[in-house]
C-alpha cells in the first residue's frame, strides 16, 4: 500500500535533474525500442496478431469468473492448490503461512510484479524468512534496497559502474564494471541459494483455463530453477492472467518476447501442469497458485478502463513513452510505471492517491500504437483526466483557465480579439522578438512569439493562397 498521494511532479523534477539517470534511461529505452522495431517489422502479420490477441483477451476478461473457475478446477485436478486473495495482504499472509508450514527459512524468487504489489519481501522478512531475488536486475535492486524501475528490466536505471560499486560494497568482491563478470558473480552466489531454498516463488505470464497450465516466460533460467529445485513452488497471478485455450499461446508467444526484448522467443518458456509426478526425480512436490484481485475488479467495473486488464506486461509502452524515457520508473510512485502504470495505479490505489499520474503523458499515443494487445492507453489517460477534473481534484486556477479557453474557442469574435490582445501584451511585456514568459509554464519550455497578423488576417488580405 502507498501511504499518501503519489507526488509525481516532485519526483519527476528531482529525477530530471539527475544527469546520470537521464543517460541510463536514454541508453536502455532507445536500445529496447530499436530491437522491438526490428523484430516487429519482420512479422508481416503483426497487426492481425495484435487484433487476435485483443479479441482473445476480451473474451477472457468478459467471462473472467467462468474462466478462472475453469482454470481452478483443471489446475486442482492436476494437483495444484489454488488460493483466492481479494487483497494484497491476504495473499502475502497465505504465502507466509505456507513458508511457515514447510519450515522454510530461505525463499528464492523469480521476478514477479505481483509480489511487489504484495510487498512480499517485507512480509517474509517480518516472519524471519529470507527472500532472495534471483532475476539479475531484481537481485541488483534488492542489494541496493530499491524497488524495480521497469516491469521487465528492473535495474535499467543503474549504470555498470554503479552496479560494480554496489557488488564490491555488498558482496565483498573486487570492483569490476564488466557485465559478464558481474553476471558470473551473481550466478555463483545464487546457485547456492537455489540449492538450499525450501520454497520457490514465481509470477505467472499466462494461466490456461482449458488445461490448468501455468506458463512462465524467462531468459535467465531463474524461473526454471525456482520450479525445479525447491520442494514447494508458489505461483502468484493477478486475475487477468487467465487465457481460455492452450492454443491461444501461439498468438501470445509471438507477441510477448518481440514487444518486450525484440527476441522471437525468450530463452525459456516453461509450461507447468501441477507438481511433479510420482515417477519424476525433480520439480516441486507441492504447487500453490495464488489468484490475486487487489483492486483489479475495479478496472473491470469501469467500461473505460476494463481493457487495461488485457495487459501482458511486456513493457513496450514504458520504453516508447517520452515521459517515462526522461523521468524513469521511480517517479510514478508505485509498482507499475509508464503509461500502463498511469492507468492502473489510479484504479488499484484510488484516483485521489494517484491523481497526478494521468497527467504524466504527452498523449502522443505511441503507447497505444506499440501495445501488443491494442490497449487504447492514451484515451484511457484522457478519460482518467476527465474523472480527475469531474471530482474537482485539479486546481481551481487550472479549471478557470480551461473554462476561459473553452469559452474563447466557441466564439470566433472573442477568438480573434484574444489573438490581438495576446500580441499587444507580448509587445509590452516580452523582450523584442521573444515570446512571453508565463509563470510556472515557462520554467521548462518557451512560449513561441506571436506574430502581428494572424492566419485569418493574412488569408483575408490575400497574402496566403
Amino acid at each position, binding site marked *: 500500500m502507498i501511504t499518501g498521494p503519489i507526488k509525481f511532479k516532485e519526483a519527476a523534477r528531482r529525477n530530471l535533474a539527475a544527469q546520470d539517470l537521464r543517460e541510463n534511461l536514454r*541508453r*536502455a529505452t532507445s536500445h529496447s525500442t530499436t530491437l522491438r522495431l526490428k523484430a516487429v517489422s519482420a512479422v508481416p502479420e503483426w497487426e492481425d496478431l495484435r487484433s487476435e490477441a485483443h479479441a482473445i483477451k476480451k473474451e477472457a*476478461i*468478459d*467471462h473472467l*469468473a*467462468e*474462466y478462472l473457475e475453469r482454470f481452478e478446477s*483443471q489446475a486442482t485436478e492436476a494437483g495444484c492448490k489454488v*488460493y*483466492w486473495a*481479494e487483497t494484497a495482504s*491476504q495473499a502475502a499472509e497465505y504465502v507466509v*503461512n505456507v513458508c511457515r*508450514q514447510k519450515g522454510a527459512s530461505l525463499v528464492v524468487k523469480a521476478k514477479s510484479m505481483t509480489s511487489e504489489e504484495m510487498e512480499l519481501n517485507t512480509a517474509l522478512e517480518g516472519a524471519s524468512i529470507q527472500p532472495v531475488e534471483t*532475476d*539479475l*536486475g531484481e537481485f541488483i535492486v534488492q542489494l541496493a534496497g530499491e524497488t524495480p524501475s521497469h516491469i521487465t528490466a528492473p*535495474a535499467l536505471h*543503474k549504470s*555498470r559502474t554503479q552496479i560494480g560499486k554496489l557488488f564490491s560494497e555488498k558482496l565483498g568482491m573486487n570492483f569490476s564494471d564488466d*557485465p559478464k563478470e558481474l*553476471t558470473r558473480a551473481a550466478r555463483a552466489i*545464487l546457485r547456492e541459494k*537455489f*540449492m538450499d531454498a525450501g520454497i520457490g516463488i514465481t509470477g505467472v505470464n499466462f494461466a490456461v483455463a*482449458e*488445461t490448468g*497450465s501455468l506458463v512462465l516466460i524467462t*531468459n*535467465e*533460467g*531463474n524461473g*526454471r530453477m525456482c*520450479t*525445479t*529445485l525447491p520442494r514447494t513452488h508458489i505461483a502468484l497471478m493477478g*486475475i487477468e492472467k487467465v487465457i*481460455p*485455450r492452450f492454443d491461444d499461446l501461439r498468438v501470445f508467444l509471438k507477441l510477448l518476447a518481440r514487444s518486450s526484448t525484440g527476441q*522471437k*522467443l*525468450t*530463452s*525459456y518458456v*516453461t*509450461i*507447468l*501442469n501441477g507438481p*511433479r*509426478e510420482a*515417477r*519424476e*526425480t*525433480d*520439480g516441486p512436490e507441492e504447487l500453490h497458485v495464488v*489468484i490475486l*484481485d487487489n483492486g483489479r*475488479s475495479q478496472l*473491470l467495473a469501469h467500461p473505460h478502463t476494463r481493457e487495461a486488464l488485457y495487459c501482458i506486461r511486456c513493457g513496450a509502452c514504458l520504453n516508447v513513452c517520452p515521459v517515462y524515457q526522461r523521468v524513469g520508473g521511480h517517479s510514478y510512485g508505485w509498482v507499475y510505471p509508464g503509461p500502463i502504470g498511469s492507468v492502473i495505479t489510479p484504479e488499484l490505489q484510488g484516483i485521489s492517491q494517484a491523481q497526478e499520474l494521468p497527467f504524466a503523458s504527452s498523449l502522443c499515443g505511441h503507447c497505444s500504437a506499440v501495445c501488443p494487445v491494442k490497449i487504447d492507453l492514451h484515451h484511457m489517460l484522457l478519460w482518467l483526466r476527465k474523472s480527475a477534473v469531474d471530482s474537482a481534484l485539479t486546481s481551481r486556477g487550472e479549471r478557470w483557465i480551461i473554462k476561459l479557453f473553452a469559452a474563447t474557442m466557441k466564439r470566433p469574435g472573442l477568438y480573434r480579439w484574444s489573438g490581438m490582445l495576446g500580441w499587444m501584451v507580448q509587445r509590452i511585456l516580452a523582450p523584442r522578438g521573444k515570446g512571453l514568459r508565463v509563470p510556472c509554464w515557462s520554467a521548462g519550455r518557451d512560449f513561441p512569439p506571436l506574430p502581428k497578423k494572424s492566419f485569418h488576417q493574412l488569408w483575408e488580405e490575400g497574402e496566403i493562397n
Partner: protein
Amino acid sequence: MSLPAKDSRSLLLEKLRRFSRPASPLSEPPPKNDTAQPGRAPQIAVREAVNEETISQLAQELKRLGAELRYVAGLENLSAAILQLGRESHYKRIAVGADPILKEANLATGLQNFQDFKLILSDRTPTPANQIREALSKCQLGITGCDAVIAETATMVLSHAGFGGRSISLLPECHVVVAYRAQVFISLDDWMNSQSFTRATLPSCTTFITGPSRTADIEKVLVTGVHGPLRLVLMLVQGGD
C-alpha cells in the same frame, strides 16, 4: 490453515460476476482428445523429412542466438561426437539422460569406454533422487533428447518426465540436445498443430528452450550464461524417419 479460503474465493467470484456483465454466454470449449494416455512419455514427433532450406534456417538462427549446431552422420557416431566436444572443451564430468534416442545410441555404455569422461549420472547408476541434483550441478555436460526442434526460432521442446528430469538440461554448464533430423519442424505453429494438448496429456513440465540462458540487465549488454547453461549445443542426427 486457518485462512478463510472459501470466503475470499466466493466473494471475489461474486464481484467478478457482477462487474463483468458478459455480453454473451460462454461458448463451450473446443472438444478435447481424451483418448490419449495420461502422463505422456517423452514422445518423438516424427513427420515427413524437412528440406535443406529449413535446416539452414535452423543453423542460422542457432548461430544468431549463440548456440551451436553439429551434424552427426548416424546414431552410431553420437558417442564419438560427444567425446570430441568433451575433449575440445576439457569437459570431464558428464550426465546422460534416459531419452529413447540416447538409449538407442547406447550412449551411457559408449561413453563409459572412454577414459576421458567420468560418467556422473545415467539411468543405470542407481543414485538416490536427493543426490542427483548435487551431482548434476557439478557436471559440465548434460545430454538430453527432445520432443521436437523448431527451425524458425531454433527452439527445442523438452518434456522432462524421464530420468534426470528438469535438472539435467538446467544445472550443467553445457546442455547438449540430441535430435533426429526428422524431428525438425518449420514453425511453432507447425509443431503445435501436430499435437493435442489436454490436461491429461500434458506432462508436469514442458520447456521451450531457445538458446543458452541470457540477460541484458546490466546496461543492456547481452551476457549469455546466467542461471541456466552457459552453452547450448544441438546435435542433429541424420535419419529417424
